[in-house]
């Protein structure tokens, strides 16, 4: 077989030839995997072969080393590691050789493949000579080899974690890279490759940045590179500065003045890609300072990890005017262009971050700009002024902003109606949305929206919904936040008089021909959802009427037949929005008894529609429809049983959806809803459900975030079917036990892992609670006794680790109570033996968190049973928290005088 020919055929336009070639390659791979890889690497290294076949060979090779999905990646790594050493050496030799190729495409491809191999081998302490041989390449004369080598080092730093490379080698890599960046490096390509490599290597430079001399040197070279005559080098150098700004924030103080000078020159004078990076530097400094200030709440002590240097506050007087200038550099149609990103957008975004960083201080610096420009005849000035205003609404205190907003509001409403520029209207509507988001709501002291202006605001917003799609979308957004501000308004909402009009306008928007543009339809449905969520009993009747409207819309999406794949995608999206809307309505109406019954008359029809939505698709389940069904099950209660025969297959399908793990997670939640709705009527479906849940747990393909809810779901099932859970014990209990063992030790792992561990523990504990409660009062409780020691040990060890969060603590102490409750006297001795049950209980009893305390009080009253078996009395005091005391009866004296 001629590999070259096959590789070339695999790239032709004719699909028959292409498919055949792909098939041939697949067979080759299956018959002789090592031979296949060797041919590919040989092809890539061969200077005589056409560049197209060389590139594809490299690409296929790369794809045999890495994949996006975790489990697939793991398989590929194992497969590579298991190859014969000679085979691997031969491939690696070819790859290194290709770095000297005359073809830049071949070199670049080889760079990436080398980095992938390094990503697999370096953590295994294999290929130790790689970095050495790359570094010796750097000293070679031909610039193209030098360039390819630096690029390889860059990719390598992206692929491997710093821990697997010795500090000595890190020093050498950095030296080589920084030398390549130096101004006296004559070759532009080399200098560019070095600058880009530094970007990735920065993460390795922890030690070097702690050394003043080395850091000074790196900073000097980076700053010099920002002045290079070559625009790409300047851009790459600024990228390095951005990365340094966030990675080494605490080392920045000596350089910040110089960086300000460099960036402000770039923002004002340089080409856009460079200027954008310069703005990004300040945005990322804002990100850092916002994080630091949030973490410590401005309360710094000697042990704060990272101090805040207040760079933004110090640079404020110069930074703000610089950014305000950028606002005037808008592009004509940026609002219609999804991918647009220009100076004005970046500048305004940065201004918004600065407002969040410094708060009130920004207001006096921006107000003169707004006042000067807001009434100018040039739309750019009006838009820039409005955008500046909208940008600073998050951060400063409401006290500072409210008086200004009160003055500005009617001006803005007029602009939204009358301004001739669509661009100005877009920004005005967005700014109104920000006003309502940050300055309106139950937590705000002085209301912005009053009985005097409410009607005008709503009239203007509804009118704007008939404007251009981008303007209408922003108007919907503004209404969203306006409604959200009334979410906890109580029984009377100021929106009530306008409810019907608002709903009608939103429905009209969704039916606009151009509602597909600018995300308009989505925005309209989302706003409708929020209007429903924030509505009160006064408009419940209208929400019930809305059910029919949305059902009709959903029905019409089901009528169209024979769709192209593009149309199918649109249909799918629209169905998602409609199901989402129904979900919100069902949840709203389900929250009180009268509205629940009002909704139930539509339950059959709604369910039929959901089932038809499912039927539209062959392999997957619609997430939004699934969520809506969960809400329906909650409302329908035991009546949901009649839908189960038709619905069950989709439940199965959802539980098997490993790829879209959100769908799987949502389905698991719905199983819980159905358990609570049907109780023991779910029994006939449990074999199937439990089988799938157990499969999900054992799968390494399924995203880990779905596993804790699956455990909780075991609890839901057990609580629903009681002692019938018996037959699943032998499968579920070992799974719970091994997960429990895994989740005990968290020392030395990161925050994210600790959070996950706590989620996992909570799931496991909820399962135990459900199982114990389910078996209570059953003659089969003794089946659980063998598992009790392990569970108590699990509680003990979690207590010892001292890293439970409040939720876990509450669930854990609840499990102790459930165990005592269900096992009765059998549990007494076990609990007595348990090391820390009593300490744990006492700690919970003194908790500040009332939920923990409540669970603990409950567990205590049960545990008391075992302390004293003599006849005793339980005092139930009608208190806010139930207090139960156990007192021997004879000690009671009546002291009523």
């Amino acid at each position, binding site marked *: 077989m001629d590999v070259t020919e096959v590789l070339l055929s695999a790239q032709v336009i004719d699909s028959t030839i292409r498919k055949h070639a792909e098939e041939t390659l697949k067979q080759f791979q299956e018959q002789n995997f090592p031979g296949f890889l060797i041919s590919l690497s040989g092809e890539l290294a061969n200077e005589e072969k056409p560049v197209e076949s060389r590139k594809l060979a490299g690409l296929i090779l790369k794809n045999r080393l890495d994949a996006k999905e975790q489990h697939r990646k793991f398989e590929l790594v194992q497969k590579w590691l298991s190859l014969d050493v000679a085979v691997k050496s031969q491939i690696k030799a070819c790859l290194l050789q290709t770095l000297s190729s005359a073809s830049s495409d071949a070199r670049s491809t080889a760079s990436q493949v080398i980095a992938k191999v390094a990503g697999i081998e370096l953590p295994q302490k294999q290929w130790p000579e790689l970095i050495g041989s790359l570094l010796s390449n750097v000293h070679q004369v031909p610039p193209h080899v030098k360039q390819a080598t630096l*690029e390889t080092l860059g*990719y390598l730093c992206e692929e491997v974690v710093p821990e697997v490379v010795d500090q000595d080698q890190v020093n050498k890599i950095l030296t080589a890279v920084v030398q390549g960046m130096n101004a006296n490096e004559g070759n532009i390509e080399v200098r560019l490759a070095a600058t880009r490599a530094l*970007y990735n290597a920065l993460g390795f430079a922890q030690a070097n940045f702690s050394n003043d001399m080395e850091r000074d040197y790196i900073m000097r070279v980076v700053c010099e590179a920002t002045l290079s005559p070559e625009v790409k080098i300047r851009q*790459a150098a600024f990228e390095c500065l951005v990365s340094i700004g966030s990675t080494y924030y605490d080392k920045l103080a000596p350089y910040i003045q110089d960086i300000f000078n460099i960036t402000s020159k770039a923002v004002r004078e340089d080409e856009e*890609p460079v200027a954008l*990076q310069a703005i*990004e530097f300040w*945005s990322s400094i804002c990100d850092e300072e916002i994080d630091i200030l949030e973490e410590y709440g401005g309360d710094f002590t000697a042990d704060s990890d990272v101090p805040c240097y207040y760079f933004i506050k110090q640079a404020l007087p110069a930074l703000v005017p610089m950014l305000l200038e950028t606002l005037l550099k808008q592009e004509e149609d940026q609002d219609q262009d999804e991918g647009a*990103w220009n100076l004005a*957008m*970046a500048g*305004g*975004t940065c201004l918004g971050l600065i407002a969040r960083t410094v708060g009130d201080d920004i207001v006096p610096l921006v107000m003169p700009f707004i006042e000067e420009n807001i009434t100018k005849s040039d739309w750019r000035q009006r838009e820039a002024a409005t955008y500046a205003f909208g940008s600073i609404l998050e951060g400063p205190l409401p006290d500072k902003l409210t008086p200004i907003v009160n003055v500005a509001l009617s001006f803005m409403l007029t602009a939204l109606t009358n301004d001739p520029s669509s661009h100005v209207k*877009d*920004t005005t509507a967005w700014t109104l*949305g920000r006003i309502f*988001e940050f300055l309106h709501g139950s937590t705000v*002291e*002085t*209301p912005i929206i009053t009985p005097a202006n409410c009607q005008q605001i709503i009239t203007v917003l509804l009118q704007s919904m008939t404007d251009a799609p981008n303007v209408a979308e*922003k108007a919907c957004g503004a209404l*969203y936040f306006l409604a959200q501000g009334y979410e906890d308004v109580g029984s009377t909402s100021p929106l009530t008089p306008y409810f019907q009009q608002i709903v009608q306008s939103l429905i009209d928007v969704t039916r606009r021909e151009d509602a597909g543009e600018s995300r308009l339809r989505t925005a309209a*449905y*989302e706003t409708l*959802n*929020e209007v429903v969520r924030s509505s009160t009993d006064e408009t419940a009747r209208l929400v019930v009427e809305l059910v029919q409207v949305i059902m009709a819309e959903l029905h019409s999406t089901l009528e169209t037949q024979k769709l192209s794949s593009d149309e199918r995608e649109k249909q799918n999206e629209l169905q998602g929005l409609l199901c*989402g809307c129904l979900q*919100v309505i069902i*949840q709203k109406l389900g929250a009180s008894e009268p509205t629940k019954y009002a909704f139930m008359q539509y339950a059959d029809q709604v369910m039929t529609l959901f089932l038809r939505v499912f039927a539209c698709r062959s392999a997957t389940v619609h997430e939004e429809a699934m969520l809506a069904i*969960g809400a329906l099950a*909650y409302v329908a209660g035991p009546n949901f049983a009649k839908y189960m025969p038709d619905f069950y297959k989709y439940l199965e399908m959802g539980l098997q959806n490993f790829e879209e793990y*959100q769908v799987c997670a*949502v389905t698991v*939640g719905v199983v*819980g*809803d159905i358990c609570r709705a049907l109780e023991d009527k779910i029994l006939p479906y449990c074999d199937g459900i439990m089988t799938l849940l157990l499969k999900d747990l054992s799968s390494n393909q399924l995203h880990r975030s779905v596993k804790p809810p699956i455990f*909780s779901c075991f609890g*839901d099932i057990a*609580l629903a079917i009681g002692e019938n859970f018996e037959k699943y014990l032998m499968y579920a209990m070992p799974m719970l036990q091994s997960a429990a063992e895994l989740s005990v030790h968290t020392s030395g792992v990161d925050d994210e892992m600790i959070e996950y561990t706590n989620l996992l523990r909570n799931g496991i504990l909820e399962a135990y609670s459900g199982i114990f*409660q389910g078996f*209570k009062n059953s003659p089969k409780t003794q089946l659980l006794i063998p598992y009790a020691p392990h569970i108590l040990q699990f509680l003990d060890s979690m207590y010892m680790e001292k890293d439970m969060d409040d939720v876990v603590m509450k669930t854990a102490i*609840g499990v102790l109570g459930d165990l005592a*409750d269900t096992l009765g006297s059998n549990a007494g001795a076990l609990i007595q033996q348990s090391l820390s049950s009593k300490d744990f209980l006492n700690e919970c009893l003194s908790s500040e968190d009332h939920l923990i305390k409540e669970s603990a009080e*409950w567990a205590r*009253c*049960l545990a008391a049973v075992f302390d004293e078996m003599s*006849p005793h*009395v339980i*005092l*139930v*005091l*009608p*208190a*806010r*928290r*139930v*207090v139960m005391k156990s007192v021997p*009866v004879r000690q009671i*004296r009546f002291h009523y*005088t």
Partner: protein
Amino acid sequence: MPPHDLRRPFKRAAISDQHRRRELSLQRQAQNRQDAQHQARCLAQTILSLQNDSAEPEQEFEIVPQPEEQAQDFDVRQAARLRGSEARRWFAKQLMLPEWMIDVPDRLNTDWYVCARPAGKRCFVVSSNGTTVSRLRNGSMLHRFPSALPNGSRTNNSSRSGQSYCILDCIFHEPDQTYYVIDMLCWAGMSLYECTAEFRFFWLNSKLVETGACNDPSPYHRYRFRTILIYDCDQEGLKAAYSGSVPYMKDGLLFYNKHAHYQSGNTPLVLVWKDENCSQYVLDTDSTGQVPDQQQLVLELLDDGRLATSDDPPVVFGCLDRDFIQKELGIS
């Protein structure tokens, strides 16, 4: 190596409604799961309270009402907005009721306050929406009147928002037509439920006077409010509370544990003491005005053997052996 994408979200609301729908669903499911477990556990309590009774457990008996659920599901800060029968029902369950002092609590002198309780009608006073309402123990209304409390009358300075209101625990003292404030639950929209008595009294004493609520009555302030003197429960404090003179008629002593939060219903963390020196209501008298040797107390023996007081609501405090019932009381 291409440059990295640096676009940030532009003019987009940071929210995703889909994300929100998912979150709200999860919250609802978690809540439903908690409710289901809670229900299972409540059932457990019912059965437990019978377990040690040798009598056959009876499923039907009535559980003592536990106001705790309402109190938790319901934010006290919304209570000020309740109207009509809803308000009546809610407030009927909210007063903190003292237990009789039957022994001396540990650390009485350091951890407790003492004060002389004014005689009169125990009630809640709620000011909101420009008016003030007082409600008796059973939730029914005593007075509706303008007051100088936050948002307690229409003329209050307008900077106070509609959010502002307060809830006080008072005793209305008929002779001088004064509300004596004995505790503070909410002040200017802030809930003090989760605050210790120490803090509540501090706040009460520093805030009440500021509003002018302690001033003499005027057209916009119909009744006077007064704080009462609260003493540390050492010898001097006890003496002052017990025998010191006060501008009102005394009805016993109240003891507050300094660390206790306000909780509705009976609590051992607030105690009441009455004797003839400090209260005229302490003892029953017979038709001639003489105090009999023994005071009477009516207890109710429930079918399942438990004993309850005839308070409203009844307090179940014990249960009797079947043997005891049969032999000593002759009931079978």
